[in-house]
């Protein structure tokens, strides 16, 4: 390969480099060296060597993934750091699940964090972290780099009224999330109930207030509002869940990937496999307005006066039965 440099701009024309041998047919990052010689025109008998440049060549598994029908289309471009990371983390892997697992396991080494106020892949990279809305896009694009399609799903808090109580107002998580020791939310006072739910009528249970930093993912009564975002992989007849934000990956869910349907909440038996495999462990508590004897632990969002929030009762998620007062105990609305 000879390059001729323009004397004014000192640039050559763009050239395509072709290797004599095929690139390795495997995911990986490969070192390449180029030796450079300087020749004047007309060319002398000997061209002195002026240096060696080293290059990283990243080889991916397959062409960029495309979305199946009914799912949001993927961009036909990727961010360079994501491609480099996935080629490094998933080096040598040869199937969709192994690739996703390797990417998931590599995430902590990226230094990127959860709980940072960014909602797109670009902002996540610029801010070194993001919220779940950015993370499920980022994990999807990380897999896309290797030609693997993962689904994006958002499960939204379904704020309902059940017998004068609110089931439920927010998802509550105590873990800090990816590369965060503690949640980034300011402390607030919670009223945890870790015992049997629902609380039997006419009885009271001891509730100890605890002031702690926790994430709250709120719903909004009568509206489709906020929730948490995760990814699913369908591979060899099984469904795997990846929650990049809270370090939960390759979780087998014994049910189909949730259909996108905001209008119809999902709960009860339809939600049971998702709860058993993931939610009951990942989400510590659900925040609601719950009665304890004669006292209503009321969740209040005082919007007209600003952000003041009063937490009602936080019930351990795993203790919420499939059915409460004849209705589904826990329901969510699924979007993409």
């Amino acid at each position, binding site marked *: 390969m000879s390059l001729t440099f323009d004397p004014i701009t000192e640039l050559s024309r763009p050239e395509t480099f072709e290797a004599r041998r095929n690139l390795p047919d495997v995911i990986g990052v490969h070192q390449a060296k180029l030796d450079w010689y300087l020749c004047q025109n007309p060319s002398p008998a000997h061209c002195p060597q002026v240096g060696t440049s080293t290059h990283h060549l990243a080889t991916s598994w397959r062409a960029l993934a495309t979305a199946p029908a009914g799912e949001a289309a993927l961009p036909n471009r990727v961010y360079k750091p994501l491609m480099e990371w996935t080629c490094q983390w998933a080096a040598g892997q040869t199937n969709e699940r192994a690739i996703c697992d390797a990417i998931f396991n590599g995430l902590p080494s990226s230094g990127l964090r959860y709980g940072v*106020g960014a909602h797109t892949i670009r902002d996540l990279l610029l801010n070194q972290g993001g919220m779940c809305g950015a993370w499920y896009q980022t994990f999807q694009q990380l897999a896309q780099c290797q030609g693997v399609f993962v689904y994006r799903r958002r499960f939204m808090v379904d704020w309902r*009224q059940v017998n004068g109580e609110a089931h439920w107002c927010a998802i509550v998580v105590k873990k800090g999330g990816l590369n965060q020791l503690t949640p980034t939310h300011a402390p607030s006072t919670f009223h945890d109930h870790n015992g049997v739910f629902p609380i039997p009528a006419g009885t009271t249970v001891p509730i100890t207030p605890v002031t702690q930093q926790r994430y709250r993912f709120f719903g909004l*009564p009568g*509206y*489709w509002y906020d929730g*948490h975002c995760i990814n699913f992989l369908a591979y060899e007849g099984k469904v795997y869940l990846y929650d990049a934000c809270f370090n939960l990956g390759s979780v087998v869910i014994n049910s189909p990937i949730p259909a996108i349907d905001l*209008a119809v909440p999902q709960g009860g038996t339809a939600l049971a496999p998702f709860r058993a495999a993931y939610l009951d462990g990942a989400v510590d508590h659900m925040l609601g307005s719950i009665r304890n004897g004669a006292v209503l632990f009321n969740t209040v969002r005082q919007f*007209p006066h*600003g*952000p003041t929030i009063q937490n009602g009762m936080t019930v351990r998620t795993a203790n919420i039965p499939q059915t409460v007062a004849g209705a589904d105990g826990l329901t969510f609305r699924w979007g993409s």
Partner: protein
Amino acid sequence: MPASFPVLKRAMGIAEDTGPGPSWGEVMGELWPIISSPLSSAGERLLLDVIRHKGGLRVTNTEELPHSLSPDEMLKSLAVQALARWTRLTYLTELHRLELTAASSALQDVIRAAIQTALAARPQAIEGDAISEEEREVDEADEEVIWSVSTYPIPKPKPRQVTRRRVARPVERFGNLTLISGERAGRGRR
């Protein structure tokens, strides 16, 4: 509730105040009274401004930010739902336009679902050789709205004795033409 909506306009960058943006809590503090009851004309105009707004929302980066959507997308999402809830399909074209231009699939989901819900709530036409329509004797915004999501604890507007009258028009056919009588058959007993 101030009709000028200074917080939302500051967040959208359409107010004269060029200082730092409000917090998300302040934005919701001004938005919630607008969307939690039948829309005033000023509130309706504001929500249209929201869904037409291009560019991000200027809000201070605090912990109250939504998790799953950006503040701009969340504001649009709520505006879309409120417009569909309280005005049904009045702004269908605007909603479709936003659906086509939205970068976020999550926001597109909300728009599609809001339109579908409003369509489902639309009165059904009577099948057969008569075309029926409903005469409305009250302003649409005053009606109780059929909505498939929980309305708790949004106070449902008290319906002001909404009376609907079915009006049937006779249909005549001539070849491929269907003619509808210009005279309203429902005015008298048929």
